[in-house]
């Protein structure tokens, strides 16, 4: 007598379930026996440090952090580092939401712009007990002051990058022009390059969907002209003559035929690395991008002070921090200490072509092979300003301040309103908004 088809199917299913259960039990038993025989095995592999950042997907820095984490794991057996990539443009919001909702990333890098708020909310662990004994204590860059509050250090500088004029020496030579030192020279050089080579002479970021990058783009021109959007005492200066003039200069370049239109920095950096734009105002990370994406062009790429009147080198930066609530503080500090050691700082400069958090100088051999890096140290020493992209006097509400400015900059970039009109409106809105802030709620 043969069994009906449904019964055979049912038998097969039952058998499959039984076998799966047996396999599961067997695996669990094997794991228990392994732990019983070697009690250290379970605990040795039990610590995983979470490390969210915006830097892991970038070609050069991504590899650096993977290698650094591997070196850390090797030095601390059983400890792993989980690198979690977050989008750079949304890092500030995402990480703040996570922290506020009770999640505690172990290794927490923060942009300079985030530091005042995190310190104000008392979210960060003072690092002085460790920092006092660290060999790099007196080597940290000037930016370190943005991690200090009431005499305590709440972060260790990870990087501090002054921005300047990035140029393609090959294209400058083809057009027969020198590295520009004034805005008029920059305009003429970009124009000549465009006319003689057909390559765009100069690129300006005008993509309002990337708010922070748009704000930085404006800072280069506004601070470069001696203006700013606010003062340390809280006075709003959006429609001050020098601020408005900065925008007028910027628009002269945005509207010029030699400038590609409607692009953001990500596209412009790629074009620069491919030799399709001759000059940009940007940071030294572009050097690393050229080195990775177009090594043949790399020896001909350089960096000089921005040819704006003040040569303002807008300086971003980031810090390693530890949250107060973190349960693995010592392990996280060990990671920070390794990253800030001379060996890994040297690699940060010489392999990744980045600006480190310590004052460790690049070697002469490195400078010979990386001529573009030569002025980075000079930029940092002479012209660094606009630290962390923070609006003076509004450090605690920087994101809201910057968003409101960019809402009006959109009118300028699109040509819908002249800079003076748009900045007058911006001034009125920011002044009204500033009045709504609680005492001690802005700086």
């Amino acid at each position: 007598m043969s069994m009906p088809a449904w019964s055979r199917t049912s038998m097969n299913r039952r058998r499959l379930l039984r076998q799966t259960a047996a396999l599961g039990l067997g695996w669990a038993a094997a794991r228990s026996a392994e732990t019983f025989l070697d009690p250290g095995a379970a605990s040795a592999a039990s610590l995983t440090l979470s490390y969210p950042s915006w830097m892991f997907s970038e070609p050069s820095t991504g590899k650096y952090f993977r290698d650094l984490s591997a070196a850390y794991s090797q030095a601390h057996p059983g400890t792993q580092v989980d690198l979690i990539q977050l989008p750079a443009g949304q890092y500030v919001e995402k990480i703040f939401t996570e922290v506020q909702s009770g999640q505690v990333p172990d290794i927490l890098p923060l942009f300079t712009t985030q530091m005042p708020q995190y310190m104000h909310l008392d979210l960060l662990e003072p690092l002085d007990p460790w920092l006092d004994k660290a060999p790099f204590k007196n080597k940290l860059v000037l930016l370190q002051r943005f991690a200090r509050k009431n005499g305590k250090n709440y972060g260790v500088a990870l990087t501090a990058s002054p921005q300047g004029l990035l140029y393609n020496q090959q294209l400058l030579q083809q057009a027969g022009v020198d590295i520009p030192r004034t805005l008029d020279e920059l305009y003429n050089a970009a124009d000549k390059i465009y006319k003689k080579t057909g390559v765009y002479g100069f690129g300006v970021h005008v993509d309002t969907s990337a708010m922070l990058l748009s704000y930085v783009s404006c800072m280069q021109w506004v601070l470069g002209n001696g203006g700013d959007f606010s003062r340390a005492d809280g006075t709003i200066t959006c429609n001050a003559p020098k601020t408005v003039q900065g925008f007028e200069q910027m628009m002269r370049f945005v509207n010029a035929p030699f400038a590609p239109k409607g692009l953001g920095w990500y596209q412009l950096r790629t074009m620069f690395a491919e030799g399709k734009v001759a000059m940009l105002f940007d940071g030294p990370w572009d050097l690393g991008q050229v080195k990775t994406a177009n090594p043949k062009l790399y020896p001909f790429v350089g960096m000089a002070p921005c040819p704006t009147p003040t040569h303002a080198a807008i300086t971003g930066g980031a810090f390693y921090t530890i949250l107060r609530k973190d349960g693995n503080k010592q392990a996280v500090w060990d990671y920070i200490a390794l990253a800030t050691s001379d060996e890994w700082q040297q690699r940060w400069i010489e392999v990744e072509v980045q600006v480190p958090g310590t004052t460790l100088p690049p070697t002469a051999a490195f400078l010979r092979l990386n001529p573009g890096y030569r002025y980075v140290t000079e930029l940092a020493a002479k012209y660094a300003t606009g630290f962390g992209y923070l609006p003076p006097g509004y450090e605690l509400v920087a994101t809201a301040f910057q968003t409101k400015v960019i809402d009006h900059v959109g009118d300028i970039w699109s040509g819908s309103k002249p800079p003076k009109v748009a900045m007058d409106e911006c001034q009125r809105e920011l002044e009204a908004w500033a009045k709504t802030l609680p005492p001690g709620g802005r700086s």
Partner: protein
Amino acid sequence: MFAIAMMAPTVLWTLLVLVYPVGVTLRNSLFNVGAGFDPHPPFVGLGNYAALLADPIFWHSVRVTVLFALGNLLGSFGLGLVTAMLLHERFWGRPFARAVLLLPWAMPQVAAVVVWRWLLQVQYGAVNYVLWRLHLVATPSIQWLVKPSLGLYAVLAATVWWQYPIATTFLQAGIQSVPVDLYEAAGIDGANGWQRFRHVTWPGLRHVRNILLLMLLFWSLGQVIIIWTMTAGGPARATQTLAILVYQRAFSDFQFGSAAALATIVLAVSLSIGLLYYRLTLRTAQEA
């Protein structure tokens, strides 16, 4: 008892992921909750709501939301209706066409935005090039994502493109449910194509049409991903819908109390639409 036990997990889950967050939002809307989540924020009553109603940015966002919703309704429904009518006709490759027309909807919204950002790029975008070749514009340099007057159109184009396939699917199902003999009778009466559509297809789509329009409205109010990734509410607030304003108030301004009040207003509007939708579906079911 058994029924209650079986429903309990769903009820608990709903309480956890729906009722609790809504309750917290309502509570926060009555307090001045800022960054830091003070466990005892100052009670402001309806102060957050009053401040919103006095805020020109709020009213600007209301206007943008209405325009966006109307544009999305007209675009998605119109395009969906045209494609549904076309796909209703018999032609070679119809199954393939049906599958292809669904592709935009199957694409993740962020990926769709990346495609549209490049399509609308000033110098390298296909849209400007095509418009220029068709002699519809003098120069191929329209700044879709830079000019505030064009930002909303750009976002609408991407949203409609992504959403119209679902309208097509709904309307196609509606058209197929119209009895064939009505068309035959109209044919015998000498009705032309337009008259058949006007007097047979359109009335036959009544129920599907109403529900679809409500759903599109509902989705328009809640649309964040496409707008945020494409323009982040810019340029110059041209695409700052209420949903985007909620996000900005919460995560740019860190004014969680104000954001909660705003979210409550959006919720009330959405809930009204939801109730209308429920009544319509109920009536449809009863009539069926």
